[in-house]
């Protein structure tokens, strides 16, 4: 490189370009990671195919795919917005990625915006894939697409807040373990593949307040039963969103 190569010419790129670049990078990192793909793509797909084809769990009357698909969509949202984001962000924090980016021209809110967009891009890919598979399995959805969209977005916000709270306060290894454990527990106890009606009444009313239960129940109300707007479930998700994002904003540690 010749003389004058490094002559200072500082300046931040336009904000939109920075966020677009950050979103593209975050999305690539998510899709390149094998463990993340297992969580976000392979497990939901396998569960959908397996439980639709084999009647292991009693999913009530009607086609099992009509019961399962809304739950699997909820699981997909949780796997990306909560589990995947918590683990990835936890290790980025541990390895100084968040710290290094904090010294770059990209503002912190720009980084968080990019992370959210990367989660949304991944979810779009998941929803397309799972929807195609569900249709192939004979899925016949009902209801208001706008209500579905609202549920997915609010569910994403609620899970993102909880995932970032975990990633920003615990050690990376603790986040890895806890996020996977929570994923597993909520998969079983959140109405994803096992109807909540299978649990005792007292337990059921508590489980019903979980974000995963609200999301899968709301999606099922709309997509399976053709309900208009599941306000109760939306309300539960809204409360989780406020609590999760509020606590994350308050307690998140960048280093």
């Amino acid at each position, binding site marked *: 490189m010749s003389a004058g190569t*490094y*002559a200072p010419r500082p*300046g*931040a*790129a336009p904000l939109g370009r920075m966020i677009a670049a950050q979103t593209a*990078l975050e999305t690539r*990192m998510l899709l390149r990671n094998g463990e993340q793909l297992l969580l976000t793509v392979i497990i939901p797909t396998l569960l959908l195919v397996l439980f639709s084809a084999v009647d292991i769990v009693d999913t009530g009357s009607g086609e099992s795919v009509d019961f399962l698909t809304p739950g699997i969509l909820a699981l997909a949202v949780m796997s990306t917005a909560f589990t995947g984001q918590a683990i990835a962000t936890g290790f980025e924090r541990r*390895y100084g990625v968040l710290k290094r980016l904090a010294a770059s021209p990209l*503002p912190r809110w720009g980084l968080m915006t990019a992370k959210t967009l990367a989660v949304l891009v991944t979810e779009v890919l998941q929803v397309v894939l799972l929807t195609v598979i569900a249709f192939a399995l004979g899925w016949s959805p009902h209801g208001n697409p706008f209500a579905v969209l609202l549920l997915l977005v609010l569910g994403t916000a609620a899970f993102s807040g909880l995932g970032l709270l975990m990633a920003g306060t615990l050690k990376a290894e603790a986040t890895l373990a806890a996020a996977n454990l929570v994923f597993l527990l909520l998969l079983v106890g959140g109405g994803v593949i096992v109807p909540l009606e299978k649990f005792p009444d007292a337990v059921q009313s508590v489980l019903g307040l979980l974000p995963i239960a609200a999301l899968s129940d709301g999606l099922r109300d709309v997509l399976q039963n053709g309900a208009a707007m599941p306000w109760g479930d939306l309300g539960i998700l809204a409360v989780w969103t406020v609590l999760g994002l509020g606590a994350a904003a308050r307690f998140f540690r960048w280093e």
Partner: protein
Amino acid sequence: MKSEPAPPPTGPVVQVRGLVKRYGSRAAVDGLDLDVRAGAVTAVLGPNGAGKTTTIETCEGYRRPDDGTVRVLGLDPVADAARLRPRIGVMLQSGGVYSGARADEMLRHMAKLHAHPLDVDALIERLGLGGCGRTTYRRLSGGQQQRLALAMAVVGRPELVFLDEPTAGLDPQARRSTWELVRELRTDGVSVVLTTHFMDEAEELADDVAIIDAGRLLTQGSPEALCRGGAENTLRFTGRPGLDLGSLLKALPDGTEAAELTTGAYRITGDVDPQLLATVTSWCAQHGVMPSGISVERHTLEDVFLELTGKELRA
């Protein structure tokens, strides 16, 4: 966001006054002053735990001072962070890269965050990162990770770069290549602040050396000035045994000492400068002495450093 106008070239690019930073009850930095000249390479030296990284990271806006003031390019690193960040380059002591990212991918990304970045391909070649290929960060060698971090610090064409131990863990070739890059940065008008454990690195690179210990500045100056000042130097020669050293000392400045160590082997300690050397040789000429094996041992930066910070090992 438009690029900020370049700062006035006068005055220090970093000005630290009475900086105090505590972690719990322990003060990592305890009343530190530091000036960094524009366009110069400034090396911050100090034993482990001296407060080097805390000081640098306060300048980078990562830490809020408990007391004192810090100005970088005339700005407050915390309050004016948004204006300052595009103008500085930062190399952390370790990490800073997505474990699944490739070297060129991360560097191209950092370039995209700036308005007028360097040519990424040329920079990759310059720092010998071309061989990293599709290897992701976690599988790069320590040296490759270091060079990538350095590239990330300069790719945005900053006015001022902070390099925290830029050559730790590098092999001699990579170390020299890093030194060469630092010199090129200075030639092109970039101000550089680096921390290091290597005395030769500071002697080789720095226009200015700041030695800090226990969170305070002990001394600051050019390597030459630091080696000249204070510490005593030594002149040795051999000649006829039993010279009249009392007569020699009369010709030399006060405070100089002379001794015959073994038969005919002489040592003179004091402020050994060209004048003293001339005085000794002319005294020998007057007394018909042929001095042989004349050697002058000047103090190195390491001597100065150990004298100031003590020789005992730190925790």
